[in-house]
């Protein structure tokens, strides 16, 4: 399988002097095309930091990130923005939906503002994506009229509508109950599979792992273990030595 995103020797700290904490200490990671990788680990272990760096939202103090064949660490802000617009979709823990906009508009705005798509084109794509996620009927509702699970599905639609090659989700299920959490992850996985996207989900929710192709554990700023998932069970990953280094 081909590696589509590779982070090497990533180090990132926060704060100055005595207050300085190292969120990542020398992390190397490879994501394979079309796979769903779940990044687990205790709170404060650096998962969000790693995701932000791999997605081009944050710069590492040192280390390299090669994504879609490009080095994104050296890019300037505008270039990274461009890169994210072309290739990256995001789902975050909160729903982060504009209270004033309908489900459909939340999705459309990504295309209208991001790609300057016409109203017609954006509407067609938004409806299509929302329908796939089972929200076709609810597309005219505003966030306060939607349940938590529905809101997170709108957020997923917003991430998927431009059919990104890379999909990043940071604790997408944290605010949802088991059933809805699983549903959202299923949809993420299915949506990504339709587009052959590579998915990285951060979660310290062990229930998500059953749906992953691969699970990584991050502890104390380092990747500690690397597992394939076979029939819902974790299996130690053989080439871990190479991947984790």
């Amino acid at each position: 399988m081909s590696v589509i995103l590779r982070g090497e020797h990533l180090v990132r700290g926060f704060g100055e002097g005595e207050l300085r904490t190292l969120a990542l200490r020398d992390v190397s990671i490879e994501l394979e095309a079309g796979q769903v990788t779940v990044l687990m680990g205790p709170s404060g272990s650096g998962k969000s930091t790693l995701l932000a760096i791999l997605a081009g939202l944050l710069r590492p103090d040192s280390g390299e990130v090669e994504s879609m064949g490009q080095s994104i660490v050296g890019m300037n802000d505008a270039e990274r923005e461009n890169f994210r617009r072309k290739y990256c979709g995001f789902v975050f823990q909160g729903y982060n939906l504009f209270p004033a906009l309908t489900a459909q508009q939340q999705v459309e705005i990504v295309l209208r503002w991001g790609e300057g798509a016409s109203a017609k084109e954006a509407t067609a794509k938004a409806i299509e994506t929302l329908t796939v996620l089972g929200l076709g009927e609810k597309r005219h509702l505003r966030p306060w009229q939607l349940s938590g699970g529905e809101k997170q599905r709108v957020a997923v639609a917003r991430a998927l509508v431009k059919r990104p090659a890379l999909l990043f989700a940071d604790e997408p299920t944290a605010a949802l109950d088991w059933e809805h959490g699983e549903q959202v992850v299923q949809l993420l996985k299915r949506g990504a599979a339709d587009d052959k996207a590579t998915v990285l989900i951060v979660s310290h929710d062990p229930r998500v792992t059953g749906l992953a192709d691969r699970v990584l554990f991050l502890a104390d700023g380092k990747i500690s273990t690397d597992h394939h998932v076979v029939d819902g069970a974790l299996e130690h990953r053989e080439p871990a030595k190479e991947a984790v280094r």
Partner: protein
Amino acid sequence: MMYAILTILNDKKRYIAGMLAVTFSAVLIAMQVGLLMGLIGVVSVPIVHSKADIWISFPDTPACDLGRPMPNYWLDRLWSHPDIAAADEFVQGFRYWQTEKGKNELCVVLGVSLDDESLGPIARLTPEQRSRLTEPNAVILDAKDAGRLDATQIGVEGEITGQRVRVVGFTDQMRGITGPFIVTSIPTARRLLLMRDDQATFLLAKCKDPARIPAVVADLSSWDKWTVHSAKEFSSQSEWHWIGKTKAGIALGFAAVLGLAIGCSITSQTLYAAIGASIRELAVLRALGISRGRMVIFVLQQSMVVGIVGLLLAIPITYGLLTLVRSLGTQAVMPIWLITGTGSLTLAMAIIAGLFSLRSLKGVEPAELLR
């Protein structure tokens, strides 16, 4: 624009403060300027009520109530000018009016030709009043000044320069800012103002063809040192002179700047808070690669909508105040340039407020907000 409008509609309460701030600034500026211009407008009352379209004055006379005696030997030359249909003279000056009760009031004495061809400011006088003014020392006052001069009835007398003058009638819309107007004949005015027969304060002329006015002004200007104004120019020059002289312009500018500053800060605070409330949503869009520039447009669109709604609210309020002020007897004007000027100024203010609120976008950092 749609997202901006939807956002504002969804959270009207939040934006209403900004809109009202725009309304406040607009009404403040429009009413202040309108009132001042209305007030200052009376400066050019003699010009407004005269048929003359050219005014000739002592060199560099800044306003039509500040003329100085000049020789009137030009009158014949004016009459014989091919472009001029009629010429006339006008006598004006300041004098104290001693009322019957012994009070002294500074007045403006206006000496006007009384015949039908007169170019003097006689528009408010009836033919009958004009014929009564031919009597020596007969005067006409604006009815609104009558009380101030203790001359509320026809036949009452006052004293100017030691001479008795008698009120033979009352008129209206003949008031200045400097003092009550005392309208009289040219010979009486000369006597009261101690002016010789070969002197006048202004020479007036009417052109055969209004289109030739600028050319005639230029031609007459070349004759001698006297300043030649077109009536229109002279009236606005007089008004601006008084705006400057009274420092009203400064007071006005100050109030306008204050109004704009208050409006701007409230509007920008409103927008700042509103953007702050959507900061996480915007951060998601940033993560998805949407530029900060696009968000700047979003904020500025909001500020424009706030500005436009605020201005729309200002229209009926200004109109209502204008009606009220006029019913109270105060002059206030609302020319088109004032309406469009106020509109553009406050809209610009709203957009500048939007620019100030842009610092709220600094916080839109996905890596910070969405951990």
